[in-house]
């Protein structure tokens, strides 16, 4: 504790407040310091402690004095028969005090380490910040002049604020602190944004390299890289699909479609062409329309998500969404019945009969032909289907 110096607690120009924590009690080594519970402030340059009740009692130590620090876990102690709850502490080991150190609360101490006890918690964050600052060593970039020494050591270091000037100064201080706190809070987010931007840029540059086939990327590596990107949700890195519209989005979309399409599908006999689905869905949505690609990708996930819908591709390339309960054999048998009843049918007639779209009715007839139930009559009159009497 003899490493500390009295301070007025004001931050210098290049010094930034990193974090502050109330309810901190200082320990000189293992012994409680003869100070009350106060506020611990971590800045880019110093560790400051201020008494809660007596704001003028403020001490600080430069961060460069810290050799090493660690956490000490909380626990239940059994001293003197009364189990006392020990709070988590941070133990900070310090360099010996420099010769020109300003006077502090302790003239000397047999310990070269201090402890901060967090009675109101917050040690995890404090520790994290301390680690950060000790890693970054920002005080080295912007050296801060030592605070003005006060006349007497026993008294608090702050110049006595008297009258209105003092009040104004206090308000100013508080405002600065609040400001710093706010920018502090958002610093995390902006750091994240910066990192994310870097990641996106990196993946984009690599993707471009792949596209231009520059660099020494082999075919193997290209495929592997693409698979990594895919697993991260960037399906096609060259398009704009790097902003949360990856597979997770498609999964959600698939679920939504599953709910939305039940009723229309049943109305239309269990099968709808994908184009019809596209129109229906986008009309219902109104805004935030789906792109065709998104729709197809979402539909492809029906099976894996165990939804009662299926995306089906016919030989001719036509894509439909159909209910899982839809049975193709039944459809074909009924188609055969219809055709036999009428002798022969064209696709248009069949569509009219069943209330299906012409495209789908043709698909069904073609499927029946493929199965050998129907045969075709192709002439100048058009394409007709007959029951297969051969």
């Amino acid at each position, binding site marked *: 504790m003899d490493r500390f110096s009295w301070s007025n607690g004001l931050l210098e120009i290049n010094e930034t407040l990193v974090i502050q924590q109330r309810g901190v009690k200082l320990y000189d080594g293992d012994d409680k310091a003869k100070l009350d519970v106060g506020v611990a402030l971590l800045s880019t340059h110093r560790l400051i402690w201020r008494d809660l009740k007596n704001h003028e009692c403020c001490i600080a130590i430069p961060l460069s004095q810290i050799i090493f620090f660690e956490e000490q876990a909380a626990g239940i102690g059994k001293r003197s028969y009364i189990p006392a709850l020990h709070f988590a502490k941070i133990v900070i080991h310090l360099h010996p005090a420099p010769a020109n150190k300003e006077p502090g609360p302790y003239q000397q101490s047999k310990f070269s380490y201090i402890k901060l006890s967090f009675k109101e918690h917050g040690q995890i964050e404090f520790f994290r910040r301390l680690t950060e600052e000790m890693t970054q060593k920002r005080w080295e970039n912007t050296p801060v002049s030592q605070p003005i020494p006060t006349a007497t050591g026993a008294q608090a270091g702050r110049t006595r604020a008297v009258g209105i000037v003092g009040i104004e100064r206090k308000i100013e201080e508080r405002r600065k602190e609040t400001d710093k706190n706010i920018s502090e809070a958002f610093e995390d987010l902006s750091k994240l944004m910066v990192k994310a931007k870097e990641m996106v840029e990196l993946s984009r540059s690599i993707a471009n390299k792949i596209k231009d086939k520059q660099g020494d990327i082999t075919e193997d590596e290209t495929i592997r890289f693409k698979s990594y990107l895919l697993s991260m949700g960037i399906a096609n890195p060259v398009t704009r699909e790097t902003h949360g519209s990856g597979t997770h989005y498609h999964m959600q979309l698939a679920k939504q479609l599953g709910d939305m399409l039940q009723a229309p599908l049943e109305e239309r006999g269990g099968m709808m062409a994908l184009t019809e689905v596209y129109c229906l869905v986008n009309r219902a949505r109104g805004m935030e329309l789906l792109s065709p690609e998104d729709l197809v990708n979402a539909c492809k996930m029906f099976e894996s998500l165990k939804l009662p819908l299926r995306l089906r591709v016919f030989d001719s390339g036509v894509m439909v969404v159909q209910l899982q309960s839809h049975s193709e054999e039944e459809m074909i048998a009924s188609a055969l019945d219809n055709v036999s009843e009428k002798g022969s049918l064209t696709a248009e007639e069949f569509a009219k009969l069943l209330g299906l779209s012409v495209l789908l009715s043709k698909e069904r007839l073609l499927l029946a*032909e493929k199965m050998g139930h129907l045969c075709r*009559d*192709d002439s100048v009159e058009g394409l007709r289907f*007959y029951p297969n009497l*051969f």
Partner: protein
Amino acid sequence: MSFEWPWQYNFPPFFTLQPNVDTRQKQLAAWCSLALSYCRHHKLYTLDVMEAQESPVFNNKKIERKLSLEAIQVVFEELRKKGNLEWLDKNKSRCLVMWRRPEEWGKLIYQWVSKNGMVNTVCTLYELSNGDDTEGEEFHGLEEWMLLRSLQALQTEGKAEIITMDDGKGVKFF
């Protein structure tokens, strides 16, 4: 006796080449037998492809359907594979239709020959195909080339021998 058309003849899909493989096989089989029986009935031994398109076999005016040129070629190819057809030229415009194969003819002729006790005698080809004796036989009116082939078939079987004479060909039966 008029020719009896099979039921498929009046079935419009019969005139469209079916895409379904199984269906197509059945269709082609029906076409082959129709073509052959028609030729047999009318004693047609050669066919010209262009003429065939207009022939009632491949063109059913009643239901307004006719087999496309492409489909006719497919049918002919099928016949050729079976041994009932032979192309006369490289362009595949004329062909010989053997609604009965040479071996079959040979057998018939030999039967008649043995029935009439003409074994070990020599006959001219003309006698066989246009002679009074053979009137009423199925091979009566058989075109020379067909007759020749049939006899050649018998020759390979060792039942006959073709002899070349001054004014034509003859055959000796064993």
